[in-house]
């Protein structure tokens, strides 16, 4: 039998039900794996005692024949989700020692279904980054290496710890959050599946806020089926988040294998950007052929405002962040640096507590919202955002899903691109437009770069149509037969 850390979530679920192994055994195997992989720095906090206690409850329920949908499944939780009594840092110095007095709705849903927490994963500070290098707790190393090159690579970001943990077999699934690509880009870099659902599908209550009109929680897993299972558990209406939608959550797993016959798949011509590496273009064309071979109809579409999405995002997201992060003032939680006055205390606390990228974005946000500049920057960005959303609306009049690459490159080395914020921002060129429009989008591993690193394909769907995205992803997954695994997990 395969190692317990190498099972799919679905296989572990079925094995637990048949009592082929216990929740305790799976928890112990993963706790050991987490301890053995500390060099990756994927976790900020390990929670082995909690994992064992939760596993014991799962085993008791399974013994009584009362197994819940995720009983005994070890999960890694991005350290942006508040977990009651467990340190929650957002990878920021300013949240030193913060232990929430409540549990986020998404994690509550997972524990309700019986899942087991192995730890809280590292991320870019306040989820601001595409490399996991802005974490106060240090960068995460990807378990992958280029062929013949031992330099450590980034796992992507911001949910880099969660993605690295899944690729390195440290949990069977993980939570992430995605504001402009923070689930999909790390999924692509780490050779796993990541899904950002439609805005409103998951409650944001208890998730440390970055940009509230964009933030969504979503799952990571090693295959499409496991992603579908986790998505169903995480989603659902929550009266505590007025933007969460009161709509039935479908059984995504049940419709996975319906195939793509008759589906219309759009290929946006504006995503063929200048300087796209040949191997990414080749993989994209391969993805088109895989879908066509299974009976999908391929159509070229136009999303004319694509090139303005990144600039729009870098106004809207910092503006919302500057407002959300106003709460870190040294009064209610975390770090306080004393000063001569209340204002001086605020300013010293925030200077010491926020890292360089967070300070940069909060200042940009404060500027674009300030008197005299609001119309020129923020209002303008909101208008362009409306045009980007309209592009998608028109496209979805003709097609059922859209296929693009996830990222313009494979993973890069730790330390690269840190001196040029805009080069770093360009990582999200293909993921940001769907975020601005609030649409569901998924990345799945579809091939390897010339030097042996995973490359992802990206599917975007209609609002609240995660089911079609997952179906199309399952079709590509079968055709791609991606079996490569990182050195650290082979």
């Amino acid at each position: 039998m395969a190692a317990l850390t190498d099972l799919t979530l679905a296989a572990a679920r079925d094995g637990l039900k048949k009592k082929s192994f216990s929740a305790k055994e799976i928890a112990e195997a993963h706790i050991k794996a987490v301890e053995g992989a500390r060099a990756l720095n994927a976790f900020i906090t390990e929670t082995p005692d909690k994992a064992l206690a939760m596993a014991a409850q799962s085993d008791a329920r399974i013994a009584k024949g009362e197994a819940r949908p995720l009983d005994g499944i070890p999960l890694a939780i991005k350290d942006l989700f508040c977990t009651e009594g467990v340190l929650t840092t957002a990878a920021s110095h300013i949240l030193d020692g913060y232990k929430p007095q409540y549990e986020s709705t998404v994690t509550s849903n997972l524990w309700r279904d019986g899942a087991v927490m192995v730890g809280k994963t590292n991320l870019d500070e306040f989820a601001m980054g595409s490399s996991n290098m802005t974490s106060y707790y240090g960068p995460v190393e990807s378990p992958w290496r280029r062929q013949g090159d031992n330099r450590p690579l980034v796992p992507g970001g911001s949910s880099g710890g969660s993605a690295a943990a899944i690729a390195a077999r440290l949990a069977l699934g993980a939570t992430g959050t995605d504001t402009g690509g923070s689930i999909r880009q790390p999924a692509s870099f780490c050779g796993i599946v990541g899904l950002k659902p439609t805005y409103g599908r998951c409650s944001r209550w208890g998730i440390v806020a970055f940009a509230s009109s964009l933030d969504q929680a979503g799952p990571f897993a090693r295959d499409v089926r496991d992603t579908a299972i986790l998505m169903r558990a995480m989603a659902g209406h929550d009266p505590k988040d007025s933007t969460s939608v009161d709509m039935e959550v479908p059984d995504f797993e049940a419709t996975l294998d319906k195939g793509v016959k008759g589906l219309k798949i759009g290929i946006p011509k504006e995503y063929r950007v200048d300087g796209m590496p040949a191997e990414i273009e080749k993989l994209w064309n391969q993805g088109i052929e895989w879908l066509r071979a299974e009976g999908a109809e391929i159509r070229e579409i136009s999303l004319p405002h694509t090139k303005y999405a990144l600039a729009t995002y870098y106004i809207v997201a910092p503006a919302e962040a500057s407002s959300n992060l106003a709460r870190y003032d040294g009064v209610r939680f975390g770090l306080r640096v004393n000063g001569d006055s209340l204002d001086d205390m605020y300013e010293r606390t925030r200077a010491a507590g926020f890292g360089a990228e967070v300070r940069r974005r909060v200042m940009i946000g404060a500027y674009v919202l300030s008197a005299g500049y609001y119309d020129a920057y923020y209002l303008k960005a909101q208008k362009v955002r409306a045009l980007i959303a309209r592009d998608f609306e028109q496209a979805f009049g003709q097609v059922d899903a859209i296929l693009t690459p996830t990222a313009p490159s494979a993973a890069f080395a730790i330390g690269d691109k840190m001196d040029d914020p805009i080069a770093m921002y360009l990582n999200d060129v293909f993921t940001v437009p769907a975020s601005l429009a609030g649409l569901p989008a998924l990345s799945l591993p579809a091939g390897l770069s010339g030097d042996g690193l995973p490359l992802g394909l990206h599917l975007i769907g209609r609002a609240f149509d995660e089911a079609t995205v997952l179906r199309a992803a399952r079709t590509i997954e079968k055709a791609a037969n991606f079996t490569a695994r990182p050195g650290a997990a082979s």
Partner: protein
Amino acid sequence: MALDKDKVAHIARLARIRVEDKDLAPIGKELDQILSWIEQLNEVDTANVEPMTSVASLKLKRRADQVTDGGYPEKVVANAPAAAHGYFTVPKVVE
């Protein structure tokens, strides 16, 4: 458009982030670089476009106006760097 030191100091003040004098110029350069990149949006004609303020176009749900939470000041102040008698404490703000 270049951000001078006074402008950067003003932005830092709005953001309530202390910036040392020697850092004003380099930060101004960084912010300038980002702002001039953002200015490409001026190419887009948005004359008759309504700003998009929310992705969710749904009507907000209503609920009864009732107290449904609270009554645990010790939990509210549990993470405060300084608290006394169930209150947050701050440096003196009145003379």
